[in-house]
């Protein structure tokens, strides 16, 4: 009886956005009289961070400090239509809508500033710290706040923008399956190191090394949180979770977290992440949605590592100790495959 080490690999890509399009998102941006910008959406923030990423996209596009932007979301009386937070579409679809709304608002902002400075709007730039100045002449400047006040009380001008992003609906061909699924794909490759106890069948994931290509990490901390959480979910899917343990039999379905197993905080696996960024041309600043895809490579990589450790094919999830043990017994004992890539 022994503990066997195993190493497994998997690589994937992931479509970003609702598969066949036809899923619009709208955003509205407007300024208060003192130059603070409100972004009004109906996106849902379920922890993935659309409020925060939307705020950054708006601030960058407007050219104002992020502290001066606030995202108000999901009130159907005020937020314009959005399809929803699913299919990795939030950052891609809503992000583009926000950029467009903020671009229109920025144009108004620069026009108002141009009137105050008596220059041409096309000669103006923002410094991202709350000032607008003439290109190459930082001393000829006005604050965003003063501009907004002038626009509101002197010029009678709104500093507002509307944004809409819609990928047109695509048809699927019934005979060939031809379709235009999505325009941008995220990528991942991952190596799992684990051990298998050939006496108990228990699998313990020791380490995850991953590389995720996300287009652009719009907020690196949010990306890391997604990737760490997603890998945790991947481990959980691979080894523990199911609502129907004897699928397709319906019996013994868990009804609480005593019977629905998931790894606890102490089971979180050490994880080294590499983030790659190849910007997608139609994505906001090139960023792809990293949230959905990040669990996917973990499942097969764990199954491949279990095979590498003891020679048992685990093609049915979850990979319970019972399945591993039955596999080892059917093979007449553990059959370690040797370290790959050595």
């Amino acid at each position, binding site marked *: 009886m022994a503990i066997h080490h195993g190493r497994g690999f998997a690589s994937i890509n992931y479509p970003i956005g609702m598969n066949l399009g036809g899923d619009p998102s709208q955003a509205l941006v407007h300024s208060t009289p003192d130059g603070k910008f409100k972004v009004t959406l109906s996106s*849902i923030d379920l922890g993935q961070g659309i409020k925060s990423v939307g705020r950054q996209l708006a601030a960058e596009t407007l050219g104002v400090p992020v502290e001066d932007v606030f*995202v108000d979301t999901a009130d159907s009386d005020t937020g314009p239509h959005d399809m929803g937070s699913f299919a990795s579409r939030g950052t891609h679809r809503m992000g583009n809508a926000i950029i*467009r709304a903020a671009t229109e608002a920025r144009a108004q902002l620069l026009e108002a500033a141009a009137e105050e400075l008596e220059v041409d709007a096309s000669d103006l730039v923002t410094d991202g710290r709350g000032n607008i100045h003439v290109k190459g002449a930082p001393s000829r400047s006005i604050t965003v706040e003063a501009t907004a006040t002038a626009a509101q009380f002197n010029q009678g001008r709104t500093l507002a923008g509307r944004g809409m992003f819609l990928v047109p609906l695509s048809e699927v061909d019934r005979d*060939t*399956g031809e379709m235009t699924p999505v325009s941008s794909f995220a990528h991942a490759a991952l190596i799992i190191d684990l051990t298998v106890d050939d006496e108990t069948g228990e699998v313990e994931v020791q380490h995850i090394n991953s590389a995720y290509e996300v287009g652009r990490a*719009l907020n690196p901390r949010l990306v890391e949180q997604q990737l760490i959480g997603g890998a945790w979910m991947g481990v959980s899917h691979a080894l523990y979770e199911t609502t129907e343990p004897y699928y397709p039999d319906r019996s013994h379905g868990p009804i609480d977290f005593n019977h629905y197993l998931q790894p606890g905080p102490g089971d979180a696996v050490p994880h080294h992440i590499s983030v790659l960024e190849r910007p997608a*041309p139609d*994505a906001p600043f090139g960023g792809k949605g990293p949230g959905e895809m990040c669990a996917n490579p973990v499942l097969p990589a764990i199954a491949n590592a279990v095979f590498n450790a003891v020679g048992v094919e685990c093609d049915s999830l979850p990979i319970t100790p019972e399945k591993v043990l039955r596999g080892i017994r059917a093979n007449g004992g553990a059959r370690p495959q040797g370290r790959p890539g050595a």
Partner: protein
Amino acid sequence: MNAEYRKDLFADERSDDFNVIGKPVIRQDILGHVTGRSKFYDDHAFDGLLHMRCVRSPHHHARIRSVDSSAAERQDGVVRVLGGRDVPVNTNTLLSLINFGRDDEPLLATDKVGYVGQPILAIVATSVRAAQEAVDAVKVDYEELPHVLDVEEALKPEAPIVNEEYPNNAFDYFDTYDHQKLRFGDVETAFSKADHIVEGEYQMSPIEQAPIETCGAIAAPETSDRITVHTSTQALFFSVGVTAKQLDISSARLHFIGGTVGGGFGGKVDSHHEPLAALACLAAGKPVKYMWDRAEEMQVGGPRGGERWRIKDGVMRDGRIIARAFTGFFDAGAYTRLSSYAVQKSTGHLPGPYSIPNVASNVYCVFTNRTPSTAMRGFGITAVDFAIERHMDKVARAVGMDPIELRILNAYRDGDMKAHRREAKNCALIESCQAVAQKSGWSLSAEAARASSKSGGGEGALGVIPETVTDDEGRVGERRRSGLAPEPFSGHGTRGLLPEGHSSNNSSAFGNAPQREDMEAEIERLGFKGASGVPPAPQGPVDETASSARPTMPTETAHATHPAGARGGPSLPAAYVQRPAGTINQPISQPPAQAPGTPVAQQPPAAEAESESAATHFQRGVRRPGVSRFISGSRRR
């Protein structure tokens, strides 16, 4: 836990000079979350709040002979007992919002139940306990029916009918087939030429989304004859649309508030709570909460479906995969929800991030007598990736190759033709493989370490839409009558042949152009450089000597029916190259969509497909009764 940013990779396609983008800005809502002060739907308190519990089926499949709720109605605290006949539009399908599929699921079951836990009555009472005690006092007389739980059993002729709207136990695609097809090249001939055949079957388990906050909604009367709904929905206007449809009221009377949600993972798209809570609120004239407990969340809430996938690969000795066939079964449970759509999403994902010149798949959306499955993180993709990546390791073993090198050899690259007939671009699988191997001490051959997503793509057979064998197997009802094998090309039906380059449409995956010029951001402010992901311009004949780390796919093996000489020409017809519709977000200038002198005639007539879809019920711009006011696009099934 630590992370490194490989800024060295793809640096020529990116500028990183920003004020806010790429910075670890603190979450806008995090202080409220970590101090426990963020308001979730259940944090909205109302005087006299009523609570709802449902009478649920104890059977997998049964006819409802009668329901006696008289004892329940007399119990203390019970305010209302609602049944399916109290719901103005009781039957719905979630994707009627995009005109996909037929209404097949009752909000509250009336004549029969199709799964354990299906709601029959909704009881509104002054407390959760009073509601539950009333639920326990309801007597339902059931006539149990035979049930089916396995997807492949459900497709057999003798299987009981799960869902009367789809009497073949499979979703109808295009009113024509009982599955979604993918056909690219000629898998059968390629299998006969392959050195190895590798087969496998893979099973995904049903999985609970397990949000910390269970699904629910509170509906409260607002002044001015409106209803305010606080909801955990992941899709605010989806839920508004479903509620307006099922209650048959104007959306002007609905005010939905959400947006701060305690985890979703896909399980909060189904929009069942909002219509029931709003209906009860209308009936009782008081605020009503409908919230699942954990048991309901786990067994009544739609889980990730149990998908089954079979893969058959034809592989050459050197590791090149020349043919791949899939047979996939999505276990939808008793009603469609979103599974029909996930089938198409998975089909668009095949054969994974690899360039394989011959691909075929049959994917089924199957009805069984279990809780309807729904979206979950990676919907339509997670199980396919499990299958494909398990299978890739088996292929590596069959040819005695390093598993990562096998993937790099077969990886898709910019310019390759994907099986759904669109050109690959913005690829980064190879670089991801190299990055993880390098830091993990997994040594790769010099050739694999040198490979690049940006070179060698679109060459030879991998750059064109091949001549394709088609078939008409699996017409709606055929399997039910005679029992057919589910695999592609299982031997019956009529074969057809589509010429090289065939494309039935050229719709764009790119977004609409901004409606006004001043909504169009300046490209240089968006951080794009170089040619990231832009489809290559039509070019001259491929220079074979330029192909560095990628062996050319031999044409005679890849497409046995296809003359070698026909392929080398000036890449593919421009009509098939996907180009952005708008002008925003294009980092570099584009060649004209139609290159001068490119023969348009290569696009075959689409008359057959047109006439068939025109005959379907749902056409563009045509309203039908019960269709939501929130249709965001119309589509043909």
